[in-house]
């Protein structure tokens, strides 16, 4: 993008290490997606296209599952888009971090995933957060697609990621990234309410909406916390 060199300069070695840890987990999940799509009879080219063009793990697993279960194409796409609705408020939150120019927005939009959002928000605002967003996003995009192709090739030889606890690593990793924000009392209040509401909504709403219901947690945002805590994010 416009200032690749300044981005690289702003990149903190500790952030590189953390992003690599995330990437290790993502490659395993990508491989399991590739293997699952192959087993579900999705043509290889379409599987590759899903990972390249959609680049949203949850939605990709969901559309493959809906179609494998005999649901129609329209139902699958609707379910996937519902799951991805959260990307809009995420974009609002990280808009300034991604960059101001059109080129940055057009490319940066495709790299907007839960992990790159949480990852950049865990850094102090400014060049370091921007570098963290781009590095994390580009790295995850790369390994997600490598994982997908590897998984398609290996097929049923791909082990279940749950055997490595990858399913526990993701929520724990996201939570670790949220920790600086959650040291603020108002964020903790909102977060707790969001978690409870999303869990309560899960049995009654289609996938994706319960997480959005979590936004109602803002009702307990109250007044800004005045105690400086550490950094707000």
């Amino acid at each position, binding site marked *: 993008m416009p200032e690749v060199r300044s981005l690289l300069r702003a990149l903190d070695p500790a952030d590189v290490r953390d992003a690599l840890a995330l990437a290790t987990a993502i490659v395993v999940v990508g491989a399991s997606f590739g293997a699952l799509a192959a087993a579900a009879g999705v043509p290889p080219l379409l599987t590759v296209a899903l990972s390249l063009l959609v680049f949203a793990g949850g939605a990709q697993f969901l559309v493959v599952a809906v179609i494998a279960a005999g649901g129609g194409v329209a139902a699958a796409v609707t379910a996937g888009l519902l799951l991805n609705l959260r990307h809009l408020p995420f974009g609002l939150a990280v808009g300034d971090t991604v960059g101001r120019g059109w080129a940055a927005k057009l490319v940066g939009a495709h790299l907007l995933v839960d992990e790159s959002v949480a990852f950049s928000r865990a850094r102090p605002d400014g060049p370091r957060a921007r570098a963290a967003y781009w590095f994390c996003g580009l790295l995850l995009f790369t390994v997600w697609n490598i994982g997908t192709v590897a998984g398609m090739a290996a097929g049923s030889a791909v082990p279940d990621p749950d055997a490595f606890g990858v*399913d526990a690593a993701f929520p724990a990793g996201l939570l670790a990234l949220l920790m600086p924000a959650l040291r603020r009392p108002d964020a903790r209040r909102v977060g707790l309410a969001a978690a409870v509401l999303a869990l309560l909504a899960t049995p009654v709403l289609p996938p994706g909406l319960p997480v959005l219901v*979590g936004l109602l947690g803002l009702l307990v945002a109250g007044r800004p916390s005045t105690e400086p805590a550490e950094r707000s994010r």
Partner: protein
Amino acid sequence: MTWGAVLALAGGTYALRLAGLVLRGRLRLPPAVERLVDLGATALLVALVATAALLDGMAFAGWARPIGVAVGALAAWRRAPFVVVVLLAAGTAAGLRALGVP
């Protein structure tokens, strides 16, 4: 799966992603609203963590995963490095499963 499905999902997802970024650039948000946008992202991420930690689809995920996440969360709260948090959570869940915990 069809090309139509892939392209519709890809286009829709990209539009959602871009819309947020572009809106942010266009809007002049008062500080109070900016705070809510920021807290809203936190709310969404915590909601994601909670549902991903406890549920598999609409059903309980079993004990190994939430216990692994809890161990990781404790480490994160005690300011353990990110890599340690992730490894502790994964190791705990994997270890419990190896012992036969669902």
